[in-house]
């Protein structure tokens, strides 16, 4: 590492604290000298919650980390502080919520992880399915759900849809672990449709059960 690169790295790791104007680590939550809360900074969701950037995450640990950070950064902790500190705490809590909401959902987590690894998957592009196999499969299952008219049939369809979602998540995990990002990308798109199908089956199930009551 040349001196100038090291200089730049050191300078980037240390930024002025907005409150006491002294040096503070770029990723610090609080200034070590004056104690003022810092802004959320541009870090990825995994780092923000102190999690390893993997698809397999321990949900209990995720929640524990999330609660732990919120305990220190939530606006309720800053209600008696200056307007600037209140605003920074709100940004921090907002970023924590965004990170938590992204990581706790397997679909969002997979898409986000792919994005971090430079393989962007567009989950918002709705309607079009490029994969003809997936398209056929989805159409058939959707029809089956639409045709279901007894509790038994829809309960079975709904359970099947749920287990397919889980199976797909396992495949995504395997693909990430094997470093097969293309495969993970395909599976993530598949998961999106499976999740939607499971949701439809659940809604239909509720409707049929309710109509019987």
């Amino acid at each position: 590492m040349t001196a100038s690169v090291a200089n730049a790295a050191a300078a980037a790791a240390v930024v002025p604290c907005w409150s006491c104007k002294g040096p503070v680590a770029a990723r610090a939550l609080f200034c070590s000298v004056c104690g003022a809360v810092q802004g959320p900074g541009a870090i990825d969701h995994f780092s923000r919650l102190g999690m390893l950037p993997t698809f397999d995450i321990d949900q209990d640990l995720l929640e524990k980390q999330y609660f732990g950070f919120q305990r220190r950064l939530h606006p309720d902790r800053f209600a008696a502080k200056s307007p600037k500190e209140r605003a920074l705490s709100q940004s921090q809590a907002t970023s924590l919520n965004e990170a938590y909401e992204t990581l706790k959902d397997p679909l969002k987590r997979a898409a986000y992880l792919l994005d971090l690894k430079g393989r962007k998957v567009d989950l918002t592009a709705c309607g079009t399915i490029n994969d003809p196999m997936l398209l056929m499969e989805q159409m058939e299952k959707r029809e089956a759900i639409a045709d279901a008219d007894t509790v038994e049939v829809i309960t079975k369809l709904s359970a099947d849809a749920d287990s397919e979602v889980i199976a797909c998540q396992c495949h995504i995990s395997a693909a990430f672990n094997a470093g097969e990002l293309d495969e993970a990308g395909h599976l993530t798109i598949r998961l999106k449709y499976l999740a939607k199908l499971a949701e439809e089956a659940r809604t239909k199930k509720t409707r049929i059960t309710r109509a019987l009551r």
Partner: protein
Amino acid sequence: MIDDGLVLLQLHEPGETPVPHESESGLAVGIDLGTTNSVVAFSFDSEVEVLRGEDGKALIPSVVHYKDDGSVEVGALARQAILESPDHVVSSIKRLMGRGLEDVKSLAGTLPYEVVVPPEGGMVRLRVAGRTLTPVAISAHILMAIKERAEQAMLGKSVTRAVITVPAYFDDAARTATKDAARLADIEVLRLVNEPTAAALAYGLDNSVEGLYAVYDLGGGTFDISILKMEKGVFQVKATGGDAVLGGDDIDHAVAEHFLSQRAAGAAITAGEVKQALMTARVAKECLTGRAEGEWMIELDGIASRHKLTKAELEKLAEPFVERTIEICRGVVEDAGIDVGDIQGVVLVGGSTRMPLVRKRVSEFFGRQPLSDINPDEVVAVGAALQAEALTRGSDTLLLDVTPLSLGIETMGGIVEKVIPRNTPIPVAMAQEFTTYQDGQSAMSIHVVQGEREMVDQCRSLARFVLRGIPPMAAGAARIRVTFQVDADGLLTVSAQEMATGVEQHVAVKPSYGLSDDEMATMLRDSLVHAKDDMAQRLLTEAVVEARRSVLAVKSALGVDHDLLSVDERQAIDAAVEAVEQACAGIDRDAVTVAVEHLEEATKSFAEKRMDRGIRQALAGVSVERLDDALGGAE
């Protein structure tokens, strides 16, 4: 104390709330501003006292009597006046908070007062005793009475700040209206807290319950159901739902109609007679909690009539309303992604949960006996008081709440594009990009709505604004990013930005049914002589808080890096600090601001030297660990 800044730093973790100086900021209470009754409570060291009036009662009827001599009376006396001068008395005003014309239409007939809608739209008004009043002003009168009671109960100490609870299902307009009412009553709102969340806090702390809990809150005019995960001082709302216009009032109304239909058809019934019938209905409903039947008398126009009602008949009248609440519970359990069986307990909140029918249906649905060991009338105020203490004196508990309703904007064809789905944890910021649909389009109208339906006209209109100055581009080329930000009070701010040019507009959502800034200013001027002084006082307090923070920061820096300064430099900084402290002791806000600016000037080169040292140390790898200490993280 000379060095009180450093003392504070030793006593408090970074980010922990220090104890504010009481003399500056008055006491902070918790207020449950209810449809039928309000309650105020105060907490010290987690010991909560519900503040009672001279009559020893905790409940303050949310009823306001506007007398002919111009004076205003709130509470039990006002409620007694309903029969003598019904057109001078307002009750259940919470149902109209943030409401517009179409809401009132849907409530037609259930409102015991004369409503006027200003021709220019916006918030409805009431005609009371010859005056035209907004729901905000009427709520403010209730809040002033609550504040007065609290100050009497606290032996004359000034009460200036409060946590005020709102139904979880209140939309943005109703929340804003509540905050505006507090402002008129000269109460600083520390936080708007959702009623079921406040109740959970009271239960969670008192009974150390843990796990998934449902809070079923049926009040006089609103229904909420929230599902929370409670764990070691964290209260995380998983899902919430409800109906902002469903409550015990509806049952009273059904009973009153039942009574009136039994009377011989005669002359048209006046508003006063409706009020009397409603009061009788309420008495009957409450009596039948403990009895199987009874008989009540209504005297209208000098003609008295007797009405029998059995518990079974009452339950038949109440059933549709109770069933509706159970339907909503079912939806919320689904939203939370859990099974009913996962729920470890149900907490009952609100006076209407005293009805045996409600208890029966709730225990059937959740498959367990509900908890009601904290008085359901007081539990919300108790939770609010605990939160008021947490916000002003610090605490280990944490409330993580969600948005009750989806927020979106109108797109082509009147379809709603959701930007923030319901049950998203707050605070939250989310952005969505939209584009123009005509070549050269230079402005875009943005219509913000709240609700779950797909079509705009089935959702609630929150605000409209226009983003102007979009540079001429082909249709579909402009990229307009609309950002929704919901703060910890559940209040929305919307901003829009054209990404190519950076043209930007921020809009604090002033709801379609809210008060304009002008109206608010006029009301502040008219209703409170002191409002202006109070505003100045508040700005001064804010400036002083900010100045003290600056002084603290400089002192902390001096503690660490004083060796970087020459004697002269140190003297200059000390003098500047001294000047800020002197200014803070005075009452001149400008003097405070100027002194802080001087302090910043005086410490500029000190800050630069500190940065240089920090970077040098980081380079040498010396203090990396010290800096990392500050990263904090999960305990």
